[in-house]
């Protein structure tokens, strides 16, 4: 899996209330949530984000509540991948579970600037910044996480474990 996209750069401790404020949690629809994604921090994001864009954050990205609506809204906005120095624990699991790729790489996150173009190769965990020409290696996933990613998210992973086959 390879993605190429433009960077939306944010700082440390981007919390889930900023990613998707609670006032919008009366729906689970990705498109509706995406329309309000990041609006308390960056009004331009929801309006200008293009499919495939990459979100880049600092430390503790996604801290705060357990709302899965946060990664759903980012994925719904068309973001292909999030890169950060570190992720909050619940956000990390949620993103993986719903099939939104996220990579931890302090250097790649620090050195990326808004509107840089990045190429991400998920299979090997590398991030290339077209402006600087540098390639970074992201932290590897633990085995369970890799299993979930390979299955295509936690729902198909659970079906495999439970031996459930969905037909049609």
């Amino acid at each position, binding site marked *: 899996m390879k993605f190429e996209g433009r960077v939306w750069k944010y700082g440390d*401790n981007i919390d889930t*209330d900023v990613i998707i404020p609670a*006032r919008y949690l*009366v729906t689970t629809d990705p498109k509706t949530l995406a329309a309000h994604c990041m609006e308390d921090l960056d009004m331009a994001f929801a309006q200008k984000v293009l499919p495939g864009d990459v979100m880049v954050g600092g430390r503790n990205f996604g*801290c705060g509540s357990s709302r899965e609506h946060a990664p759903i809204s980012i994925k719904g906005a068309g973001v292909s991948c999030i890169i950060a120095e570190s992720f909050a624990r619940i956000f990390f699991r949620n993103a993986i579970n719903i099939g939104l790729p996220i990579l931890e790489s302090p250097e790649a996150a620090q050195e990326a600037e808004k509107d840089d173009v990045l190429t991400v190769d998920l299979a090997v965990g590398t991030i290339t910044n077209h402006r600087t020409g540098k390639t970074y290696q992201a932290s590897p996933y633990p085995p369970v996480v890799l299993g979930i990613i390979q299955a295509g998210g*936690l729902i198909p992973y659970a079906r495999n474990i*439970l031996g459930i086959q969905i037909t049609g």
Partner: protein
Amino acid sequence: MGKTLAEKIIAAHSEDKREVSAGDLVTVKTDVVMANDITAPIAIESFQAMGVDRVFDPDNLMLVPSHFAPNKDIKSAEQTRTLTIFAEDQHLKNRFQVGRAGIEHVVLPERGLVLPGDLVVGGDSHTCTYGALGALATGMGSTDIAFAMATGKTWLKVPDTMKFVYHGQPQNYVYGKDLILRTIGEITVDGALYRSMEFTGPAISGLSMSERLTMANMVIEAGGKCGFIPFDEVTQAYVEPRATRPYTPYFADDDATYISVHDFDLAGMEPQVACPYSPDNVHPISQIKPEKVDQVFIGSCTNGRFEDLAIVAELLQKTGREFDPNVRVMIIPGSQAVYLQALRAGWIELFTMAGGAVSVSTCGPCLGGHMGVLAGEEVCVSTSNRNFRGRMGHRDARVFLANPAIAAASAIMGRLAHPDEL
């Protein structure tokens, strides 16, 4: 080698009951699974998408409508209805109807549904609250919750543990809330990322269960995975009359391995306040400009228990004062049981006569949901746990997090105030 509380409880719940150490990835059995009116609808959708018919354990799945309940609009009514229908279809033993429940983290301990030694996963980040009882409790997102609903299991990475030791005699009007605020102020909002926090020391032994629940509640505000207050006589006295099933307390070994140990001398410590826009922007009350406030919120899973309301009632009774008429004072008991206790104590009348608005139990203003959403530029003193931008309403509203005594004094003075100023 000695083991931490997290290692012991995870080992006891692991599939082959093997010994585990920090860093291991383990599949564990869950005792209690929880979700609320925001997280359960997605969890139920994911559960159905997994193709499973029945939940693994209908006796220990708790679906608690608390955030937008009593339903604030049609959409939230639809969300709550999803929970009700699912609970009926799946024959869930425990039901949490409006009027008989409240905020999940107040209700579950109060009813003896979460117990010492349990492994609890909840579709709410403040699930860590139950660590005050000596349970390993951690928040997860909806799809993880769906997996636990379907299988009675989850996967965990055994966390490293940070140990916090508190001693010394603080000033008056210092509570568990101040201890945890000071801790977060010191280690910052990602200081305990992916880690377990064990709170110990003589100052902790002396805390009531209510204050312990407040401390464990805010573990997530330091990024923590779970937190613990060791099981002792206070825990036992709280749990014994409530427990709905047998339980096993666990204890950390004296020679357990901690990634760090943090010593807090509380001698002379003042009440602490977290200023906008982060729970780690913490200062002693005397160092904060006494700003005019527009709203005071006393409630939430952090400080919405009977003992919290008692602090407010005592200040009103002692001073004979009323709340400042220019301040909206929202007092929201954390559960209907707390509401009833307060009613019987005569406090609902006391609060109302003082100009406070007392309501049915709900999360309400804590997440900017309803019952006291803030306008731009407004200032609020809140006993809750988060003051991120936009958390309680408008992005420009500013929220100061404090204990119930500071909140009550501020409500009386119309500005940020210490009870000694009354």
